[in-house]
């Protein structure tokens, strides 16, 4: 299992209800069902990915997460997950607001754009960085927004979003200087 998924699986209590936004081929949800017996629901825009989810026994709806949350009632899931998908939507702000409304807690993960390798590649290479957590060339990346851990923490403060937990991943779990050393950041948020 991906380290990022391991952290999320570790955070979620057994038997929780989970909505995964941009669930892709359903690997994370399938792991959550297996390890934590969650009640799983996914939203995914890609038809082929839906077939993979269905083959894993998952309930998933083919929709755009920028519009697909409006009918869910407030706090209708224990957890709403945005694992690597927040920076890929056109308007992250309303998507995160909707996630915080629908979930009792929201888990967000994203690639940290202030990782030292990113900084070095821009500073010395003079090129848009390609790293393990940002593996795409500029012309094919699904990422529409580039943010750092510091950016996100500031954003949460500005919006009054409560950060309950966080984890910073590089070659393992990191404590010191995450904004410089972490490739991926994960947060548990509540409104």
């Amino acid at each position: 299992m991906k380290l990022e998924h391991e952290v999320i699986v570790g955070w979620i209590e057994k038997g929780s209800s989970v909505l995964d936004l941009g669930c892709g081929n359903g690997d994370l949800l399938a792991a959550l069902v297996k390890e934590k017996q969650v009640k799983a629901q996914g939203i995914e825009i890609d038809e082929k990915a839906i077939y993979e989810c269905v083959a894993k026994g998952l309930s998933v709806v083919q929709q755009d997460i920028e519009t697909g949350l409006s009918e869910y009632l407030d706090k209708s899931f224990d957890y709403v997950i945005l694992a690597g998908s927040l920076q890929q939507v056109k308007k992250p702000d309303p998507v995160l607001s909707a996630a915080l409304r629908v979930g009792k807690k929201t888990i967000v993960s994203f690639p940290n754009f202030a990782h030292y390798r990113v900084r070095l590649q821009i500073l010395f290479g003079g090129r848009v960085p390609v790293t393990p957590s940002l593996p795409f060339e500029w012309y094919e990346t699904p990422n529409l927004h580039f943010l750092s851990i510091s950016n996100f923490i500031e954003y949460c403060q500005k919006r009054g979003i409560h950060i309950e937990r966080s984890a910073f991943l590089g070659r393992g779990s990191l404590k010191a200087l995450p904004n410089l050393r972490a490739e991926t950041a994960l947060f548990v948020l509540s409104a």
Partner: protein
Amino acid sequence: MSKAANALGLVETKELSFASPPDELLLDSGEKLGPVTLAYETYGTLNDNKSNAILVMHALSGDAHAAGLHAGEQNPGWWDDMIGPGKGLDTNKYFVICSNVIGGCKGSTGPSSIDPRTEKPYALSFPSITIKDMVEAQRRLIDHLNIKKLLSVVGGSMGGMQALQWVVSYPDRMRSAVPIATTLKHAPQQIAFDEVGRQAVMADVNWRDGDYYGRPLPARGLAVARMVGHITYMSDASMAEKFGRQQKSNEQPSKFGADFEVEGYLRYRGDNFVKRFDANSYLYITKAMDRFDLLASKKLSEVFKGVKAKILLIAFKSDWLYPTYQSQEILKACKLSGVDATFVEVNSTYGHDAFLLEVNEETHLLKHFLEGVPA
């Protein structure tokens, strides 16, 4: 014929009769109908605890013969691609029931049936029926088969409306539902096409206010209705692919002959339909579809209140008769009620007909979905 088409072998249509006076079926309209005969077929074996039964419901012009072969016939049932050993609805595992509808003309009581009171066909004295009435009759069949809880109710188009009506009328009687290319209510465009079809039938001089049994049939009118229908079942792309502007070569030259392949196809489909379908049934059933509206007395947030069944919704991208937004409306209702839902829009060019043609996608979806339905 392929071996797969033969896999179920010979099957027979069965009949259930019930609601003999004075215990007639009370219809949505307040009128009573009885006795009622319902035609159905079954495939596979019902298990000991009766937990593997799937009810399949057909579209406007379908019938109980969903799969396998009738003795002496060449063509298998209308969903043979999906029902059989190892198929999407695997008869090695499931007991599949396909029920006809009341108001029809395929073995179930409808306007062409004999009214026992007059010993003549009902014709227009047959009461108006609704999708809910069709489901009421099917519920008697499921009771008769001693099945308390169906594993699933599955149907496309009008069959999907029946599946939705089942969920709303009897939420405790199924563990899952699969409404395909369908809607919670007919939209004006759908009603409009149905109305053109009905007007074509009623404009035929042979229709005679429905009193044509034993006389020349309103064949031209019904054929035109079917031609219009077939246009709405296809798409611009599927017609272009199937026919192009190809000309028919064997046609006698005439000013308004069927020069183009598409004209010949529609004429053939129209004429063929007349041989197998009753014009009055066409009127009654299209009206039932047009009047279908699960939101008439309920809000979207209430329509699936208390529903525990898992739902698999399938729509098709090029289906302009039952457009994707209608399936998305069903999905909204699921979300508002916390119903466990899966929704896919299959990228198909076949139009509404896709629900009969996109067998690979439907097989994959149904197979895995049904495996995941909790006991």
